[in-house]
């Protein structure tokens, strides 16, 4: 698919707005720029409304007869339930500060990808049916009639927003397009209009516990496979407890970590780390997914999937929960889980059994991020690390949207990276931390049929990677998000060939010196350890070079 896009024609970007006013709805469903609709089988499994077979390119979308009434009722209901919805529809002044902050706008030039116009698509309907000025002045007040064409436009553009919240950082009122997209998707769902890359993973998570649909016995065999691989690389036999009652900690990671590549090496990193510190923990097959595809669908479905985490923690009788490297998973855990399915009063306040550190920021949800946990281990000198084992890599770090703008977990992974590798370079400031650019494939948009839009949306991120590649010779982009690990490799292959993608704990696993291990000849990827690369940075690099922490 990637090659198809590049061979046919290089993607062109033109920022000139069209002559036609945005108020006239018109969408062209061009191959490569939209996701396929949800399969009715999965919609039915989740009891979602109006399952049906249709294609966005069809003229007839098989809407229920009273679709307009359903949408308007749904809007009214949500205006009463979400302050964000009503407020953000009301107070935008169209200053345009958000316009060139959206990666989809930067990569496509389509003005309806400016966050302000994306929301105007909804706002114009809100004005027409819910405000005095819209009812009286109509088009002059920016109001539009709700038609099937408007609905099609919603489908196209609200499944062309990755809910990354970058626009919200630059908006003087904090208007968050993510909230608007969530509302629009909830409304579309009422008519059964959703994409399969959201509904199928959600349905899989509901049934098997993880979005890939891996049943428990297959989970067991994949873990066994990892154990063998670790034995081969390190000579160490690790133990991986599954569904073990009475463990102190329940560990939950995104399922791609134990099934996809390059996630797999991060998974090996987890297992090595937990083995080395002798953690009393367990995996769960019932709650074998940290990610929450329901979150891209509706608050209710997000809650239904999220419920498994606490319910499994209760069944297994653990004291607290540790979570792996995933992006939106962490927004849900940090900002929603306590509200959705708390209070977690059956758990204990999280304390690291190794260092005794009390994770005070997680007193209520009782769930700690693995990067917080590992950073604390390193700070307390509990790990023996040999960063030279990562000398093959010149590393940069991609802040995942939800981790940065949802959680504010910025320094922990950087601290870990500086301790496990010798060369670490930051991308330009406009593209990291709270200003980080999305991979372009989050919030359920990571399907192959959407490849052109993904490449466009990921362009700003790739561009920043290209910069550090040219400047410092960076050849590894690290991240703590499973969707990133899945979607950044094809993105970089298209825009910046020669840069690989890895999770932070893959590098931890490489650097970690295990008690009694054999001399390592390969990294976790099975590539020979190359200790001949000099760790000194090329001339001209100053800031951001791999500074080592004193206590390593």
């Amino acid at each position: 698919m990637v090659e198809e896009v590049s061979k046919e024609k290089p993607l062109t970007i033109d920022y000139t707005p069209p002559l036609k006013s945005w108020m006239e709805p018109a969408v062209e469903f061009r191959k490569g720029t939209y996701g396929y609709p949800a399969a009715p089988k999965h919609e039915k499994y989740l009891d979602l409304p109006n399952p049906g077979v249709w294609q966005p390119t069809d003229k007839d979308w098989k809407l229920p007869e009273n679709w307009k009434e359903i949408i308007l009722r749904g809007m009214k209901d949500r205006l009463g339930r979400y302050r964000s919805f009503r407020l953000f529809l009301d107070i935008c002044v169209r200053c345009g500060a958000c316009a060139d902050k959206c990666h989809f706008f930067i990569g496509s030039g389509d003005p309806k990808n400016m966050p302000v116009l994306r929301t105007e698509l909804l706002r114009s309907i809100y004005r027409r049916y819910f405000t005095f000025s819209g009812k009286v002045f109509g088009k002059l007040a920016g109001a539009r009639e709700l038609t099937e064409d408007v609905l099609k436009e919603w489908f196209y553009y609200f499944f062309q927003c990755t809910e990354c919240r970058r626009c919200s950082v630059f908006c003087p009122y904090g208007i968050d397009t993510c909230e608007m997209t969530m509302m629009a998707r909830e409304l579309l769902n009422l008519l059964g209009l959703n994409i399969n890359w959201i509904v199928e993973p959600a349905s899989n998570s509901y049934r098997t516990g993880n979005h890939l649909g891996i049943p428990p016995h297959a989970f067991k065999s994949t873990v066994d496979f990892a154990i063998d691989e670790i034995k081969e690389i390190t000579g160490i036999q690790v133990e991986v407890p599954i569904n073990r009652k009475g463990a102190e900690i329940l560990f939950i990671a995104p399922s791609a970590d134990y099934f996809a590549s390059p996630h797999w090496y991060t998974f090996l990193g987890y297992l090595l780390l937990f083995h080395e510190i002798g953690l009393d923990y367990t995996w769960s097959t019932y709650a074998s997914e940290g990610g929450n595809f329901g979150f891209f669908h509706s608050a209710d479905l997000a809650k239904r999937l999220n419920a498994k985490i606490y319910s499994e923690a209760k069944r297994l009788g653990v004291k607290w929960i540790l979570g792996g490297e995933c992006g939106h998973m962490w927004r849900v855990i940090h900002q929603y889980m306590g509200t959705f399915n708390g209070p977690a009063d059956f758990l204990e306040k999280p304390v690291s059994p190794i260092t005794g550190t009390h994770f005070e920021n997680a007193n209520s949800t009782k769930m700690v991020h693995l990067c917080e946990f590992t950073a604390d281990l390193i700070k307390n000198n509990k790990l023996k690390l040999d960063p030279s084992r990562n000398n093959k890599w010149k590393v940069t770090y991609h802040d995942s949207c939800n981790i940065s703008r949802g959680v504010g977990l910025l320094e922990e992974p950087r601290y870990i990276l500086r301790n496990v590798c010798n060369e670490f370079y930051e991308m330009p400031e406009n593209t990291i931390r709270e200003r980080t650019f999305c991979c372009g494939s989050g919030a359920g948009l990571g399907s192959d049929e959407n490849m052109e839009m993904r490449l466009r949306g990921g362009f700003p991120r790739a561009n920043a990677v290209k910069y550090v590649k040219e400047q410092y010779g960076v050849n590894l982009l690290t991240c703590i998000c499973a969707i990133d690990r899945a979607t950044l490799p094809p993105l970089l292959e298209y825009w910046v060939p020669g840069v690989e993608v890895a999770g932070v704990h893959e590098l931890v696993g490489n650097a970690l010196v295990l008690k009694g291990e054999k001399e390592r000849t390969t990294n976790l990827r099975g590539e020979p350890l190359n200790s001949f690369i000099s760790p000194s940075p090329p001339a001209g690099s100053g800031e951001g070079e791999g500074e080592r922490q004193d206590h390593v």
Partner: protein
Amino acid sequence: MGLWYSISGIFLLIFFVVIGIEGIGLYSLFAIFIPYMAVLLFVIGFIYRVLKWASSPVPFYIPTVCGQQKSLPWIKADNIDSPSTTGGVVKRLALEILLFRSLLKNEKVEIDAPHRLLFRTSVLLWLGAMAFHWSFLIIILRHLRFFLEPVPSVVVILQRVDSIFQNLLPILYISDLVIVIALAYLFLRRVIYPQVKYISLPSDYFVLLTIAGIALSGVLMRLIFKVDLVQVKEWVMAMLSFRPMPPKGVNLLFYIHLFFVSLLIAYFPLSKLMHMPGIFLSPTKNLKNMSRNDRHINPWDHPVKVHTYEEYEEEFREPMKEVGLPVEKG
């Protein structure tokens, strides 16, 4: 197109005042009835809109985090951009409301080679917005001298400072100069920048033109077509004590000024101008980033259907047993 609608609308309204005052002599309508109605609409509309927002709950905890969270004690947390205390939230909001901090972050993205992005700091919008809002505020505060007797010394001092250039340019207020320039910029960017033009609605131009009408009529009254300010104050005091009478010693320009002010405040609650109270309620800005520590309650939370462990084990019990995974029911 929206631009021409707005411009013709504004001229139509000016024409309306000219006919009303010069032609028919409806002094009471323009000096008493319309201002009273405008204030009434403003107060009722403003309260209604704010209560409407307040009546919708904040079901989930959604601050936009822009700095390091408070986690491990040795990692320096950012208490403004990722506030962990109420004080931090107050600072964050205050910086936003008083200094438009988010706009200060603004940057412009350009493509300089076919596939190479450039980021340029762009503070022009911030500068324009600051200049406009602050000069507007100072002008409103200066007008308090018409509403208060005796005039508070703060207002007098403000007026003196604002007219500090008097020796150079007679009777020119700095704030007047600034607001006219700022309005011109804010207007021109909507006309010149293709993207901003594309997103602009008729109402966006209309608000700017209305305020420009107020500012220009005010400046002209001060510089050229003078009115008797003592009489104006008497009229205001009479209005405030609900014994209204049309002002004496004023001219047409005064009525145009007054009409546009009335128009603006009556239109305020119906329009995007409600961003003024709205920012205070914005859930992405006014919440602490402590959601793993303080549990937030959703008032409309309701039970949802879940797939229980029992149902799960029911489906997978046999294969689980085969590979030696523990099960609840042997």
